[in-house]
């Protein structure tokens, strides 16, 4: 299920609208993930405050979204482009890859809320494919 040229165009133009609100979107997606899928909290036992919109959640939402932005810029070769991030997730963070799907879903929910008119079915499928491809690239170094 690789990205078509049309998918990439759709993603890049939609991302131009997303980028200015990236921090807010990342924070909201992460907040939702921690509430709706409580098992994901196990990765953040070192945070003082896991409530929606808290300082550590905000900071980390920003970090995650800058990773997604990097992926957009390297959309033509995600595997190689995200190699360092893959090593980070594989050897240090060791996030179970099933969680990438969970975060992706919550990102899509937030995008639907923030862009009720722009997040059409075509944009939805392109973004879903993109986030799946990013997840795959992030899992590259796992084993």
């Amino acid at each position: 299920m690789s990205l078509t040229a049309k998918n990439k165009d759709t993603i890049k133009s939609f991302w131009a609208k997303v980028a200015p609100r990236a921090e807010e979107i990342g924070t909201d997606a992460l907040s939702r993930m921690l509430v709706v899928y409580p098992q994901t909290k196990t990765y953040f036992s070192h945070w003082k405050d896991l409530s929606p919109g808290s300082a550590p959640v905000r900071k980390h939402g920003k970090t995650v979204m800058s990773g997604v932005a990097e992926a957009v810029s390297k959309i033509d070769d995600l595997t190689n482009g995200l190699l360092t991030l893959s090593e980070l997730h594989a050897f240090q963070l060791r996030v179970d890859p099933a969680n990438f799907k969970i975060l992706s879903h919550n990102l899509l929910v937030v995008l639907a809320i923030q862009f009720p008119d722009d997040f059409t079915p075509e944009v939805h499928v392109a973004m879903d494919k993109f986030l799946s491809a990013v997840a795959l690239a992030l899992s590259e170094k796992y084993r």
Partner: protein
Amino acid sequence: MRRSSNQMGPGGVGLWVFKLQTGILILQGSSSSGHAETSKVSNMVEWTEFERATIQDIFSKMDYESVGHNALTRCLVVYPWTQRYFGNFGNLYNAAAIMGNPLVAAHGTVVLHGLDKAVKNMDNIKATYAELSVLHSEKLHVDPDNFRLLADCLTIVVAARLGSGFTPDVQAAFQKFLAVVISALTKQYH
């Protein structure tokens, strides 16, 4: 028990094997008597007041035609393999065709109204969906994984409608509700 299992000195392995065998015997013993009781107790889904109120609220304000149509359209566009169940729906060649297809619109409404049973019987969703489960398994032959795909699309459409009202807690309640429905719909598959 944990302490001794790590000590692999002389006799340590033998002791560990003994504990393992004993553990297996205990497990076998309890499974035959304890299992039935456990499954009875875990039948009931517990709903908080907030969850009940949230589900009733969302569905009382639901625009079934619009939301049903949009959710099914999204499912067919985002997960095109789900089109396999709609071979007789005519033109599903692209997103525009799917969106404009009256059969898709009508069926979206039917599916969404199917959720009404669960909304009205939140304390007995499993029994409520027994017949529908048999239908989806024996007659429609729908892969249960597709229920989750449609549920995800429905969540996204409802999120877009409610906007900031679709808070993380509301999302959790809604997704829990859909998960219970999916579990009930999958129950009669064999």
